[in-house]
């Protein structure tokens, strides 16, 4: 077993792109650990000065002020650290500046009220939320899929037939449609109960899990059908092991590799999926300005921004706030591409035909 891991690692290590992927993933994990280790209370504020007239005059300045007191200047914007928050009530895009460095500020809108938030803070605090949501959805979905697939593949017969037809039904429709109807139904049913509370995030996770398992079930079943015929399973059965023990101790451990590959692929797609849902208009988080990458990317292309860009261009003050499209986008991109490269490397390392 240990030798097998070492051999896999040996072949994995020779794949440069996969190693780059692993490096980026590790960097994200370190950032997430940092974000968890230094929790920021709601009322701790980082402040920055806004600008007017389209010139970035005081983007680097950090003012100090505590919420009940009046802001020291007319363009001094308060941003609760981690929970990007409210700012200037009236602002035109032509006066939009980069905002606090290094990544600038992200403007979004909720029912016409503009909100600005610190992109660096949002991305930093978003790391743990994004990883948490992605990992829990994928882990939950994979666990359900693993159990159903193992049972289905091992038992065969009517059980197999039932589970596989159910899987077919779920897989026959694009995933996004299932997510849309489940989230729409759940948010209609529970809308008033969950608004403005963390509960909505947990419900989102469960809703995603509920439609996430079929791919895994199919993968695991295929794998189990192969493993089940192996000699060691036969030996276990001959020595009188119970069915549950055979499934959990012999079959599942030997069918999980493809599941790991699929899991690492899926982890990267969840921030994209969440961004897509928010872009389509779902309220998934307690606030419109929530530190989650998908949410930030979707907010970066909000109507306020895009119509604002077009309107301003008409009057000759064309400002493209590239930073708010670029930074959330690049983080999602890096995360997704790194898990893709990583899982591709793992797959190649595990597949003897792909080894060089």
């Amino acid at each position: 077993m240990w030798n097998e891991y070492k051999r896999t690692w040996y072949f994995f290590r020779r794949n440069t792109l996969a190693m780059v992927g692993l490096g980026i993933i590790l960097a994200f994990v370190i950032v997430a650990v940092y974000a968890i280790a230094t929790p920021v209370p709601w009322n701790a504020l980082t402040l920055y000065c806004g600008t007017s007239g389209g010139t970035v005059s005081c983007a680097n300045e950090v003012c100090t002020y505590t919420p009940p007191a009046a802001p020291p200047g007319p363009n001094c914007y308060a941003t609760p650290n981690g929970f990007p928050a409210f700012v200037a009530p009236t602002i035109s895009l032509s006066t939009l500046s980069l905002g606090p460095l290094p990544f600038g500020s992200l403007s979004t809108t909720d029912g016409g009220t503009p909100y600005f938030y610190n992109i660096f803070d949002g991305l930093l605090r978003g790391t743990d939320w994004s990883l948490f949501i992605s990992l829990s959805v994928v882990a939950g979905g994979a666990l359900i899929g693993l159990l159903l697939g193992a049972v289905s593949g091992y038992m065969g017969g009517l059980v197999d037939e039932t589970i596989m037809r159910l899987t077919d039904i779920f897989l026959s429709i694009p995933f996004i449609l299932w997510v849309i109807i489940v989230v729409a139904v759940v948010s209609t049913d529970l809308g008033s109960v969950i608004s403005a509370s963390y509960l909505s995030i947990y419900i989102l996770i469960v809703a995603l899990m509920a439609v996430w398992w079929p791919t895994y079930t199919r993968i695991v079943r295929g794998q189990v059908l192969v493993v089940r015929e192996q000699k060691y399973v036969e030996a276990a059965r001959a020595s009188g092991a119970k069915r549950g023990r055979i499934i959990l101790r012999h079959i599942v451990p030997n069918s999980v590799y493809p599941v790991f590959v699929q899991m690492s692929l899926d982890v990267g797609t969840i921030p994209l999926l969440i961004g897509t849902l928010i872009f389509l208009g779902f309220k998934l988080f307690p606030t419109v300005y929530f530190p989650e990458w998908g949410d930030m990317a979707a907010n970066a292309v909000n109507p306020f921004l895009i119509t604002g860009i077009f309107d301003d261009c008409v009057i000759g003050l064309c400002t493209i706030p590239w930073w708010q499209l670029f930074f959330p986008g690049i983080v999602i991109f890096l995360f997704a591409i790194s898990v893709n490269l990583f899982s591709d490397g793992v797959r190649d390392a595990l597949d003897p035909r792909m080894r060089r």
Partner: protein
Amino acid sequence: MRMWIYIIRRVLLLLPVIIGVMTITFVLINALPIVDQMEALYGCTPKACDYTVGSPLYNRAYAALGFGEPVYTRWAVYMFHALTFNWGTVSAESSVGKSLLVGVATAGVPVATVFSWLLPYTLELALLSLAIILAVAIPLGNLAAVNRNRPVDQASRVLSFSGFALPSFLLGSLILIGAVIGIGSLINFGLIHTPWCPSGELVYSEFSGSWPTTACFAGDIYPSWLLHSGLQSTPTGFPTIDALIHGNYWLALDTLIRIILPALVIAFGTIAVLLRYVRNSMLEVMNLDFVRTARAKGVEESVVVNRHAGRNSLNVTLTVLGLTFAGFLAGFPVIESVFSLNGIGYILAIAVDNQIGSFDFGVIFGSVILFTYIIVTANIIVDVLYAYLDPRVRLG
């Protein structure tokens, strides 16, 4: 004859999928509050849309949908309606009912009718995307397989992963912003971001100086000769074909230009998936005996790659492509709403945007059922094509 038996068997095997999907949608609909169920399944017109308990509409819907009956009766009623394309009516209170689609108010119109208006638009976009995908993915995939693990292969791998990793709403918006700012004075991008208008009127973009302005107009700002609904009749429903039938070549060109950028965005995301399949199936075929024989015979390398290996590797590609294309027909909710294109995905995007009105569950569930039909048909077509192309597939 054997082919017919094969087709019939495939259809019968897919029946459980249709019934299953509909049953799951039935379960989900039943999880909704009763008034939402009625709105979804019974709909309402702007004149009468009062679903408070005890109102005449409520009572009629209660009887028609069989709410007094046991669950299995309601399931049977639901299945009957779902199978006969009776997917409810667009409710006047919903976000879809409050918007204009294809320049027409849809409140009170049956969901299936609205879909039949929109499907041709999506189909045109899907076909253009497919053309781009075919033109790029297959040659590039073959190239990557031939140059395995060389720079070309690595580059195509990174390109393919980029397609997975870039959110399409972000890429689409970037391209839209770039296009409007860069070539806005050359091309009128037309309808931009309809769902963002507070009252849901159409958003027209209009030339003002060198930049197109966007605003919410209910009126006829857009030149009528460029407006699809400005045509006297729409015999086929396909915007480009209709324009050609009427001899309005500028409109046809305009319609095509509008879908080029969205098609590129869609293609970029899909090429990612297809490229891997083309490459891997090509790699598998390249290792087979007949390819080695061909090489040993001294057949030119380009002929080996294109004729011997290329053609034989197309089977897997065809399957993936068929199902991808079927997936396209579910519409592109994100891309169609970024570029404000009419289509199946666009109406779904409006239906789930509850800032304008309530969710339109009739449209949401209708698109699931519509898509089930599409995917089942596509599955059968792909299976039959597969059997036709590869004699080794047993029809039995």
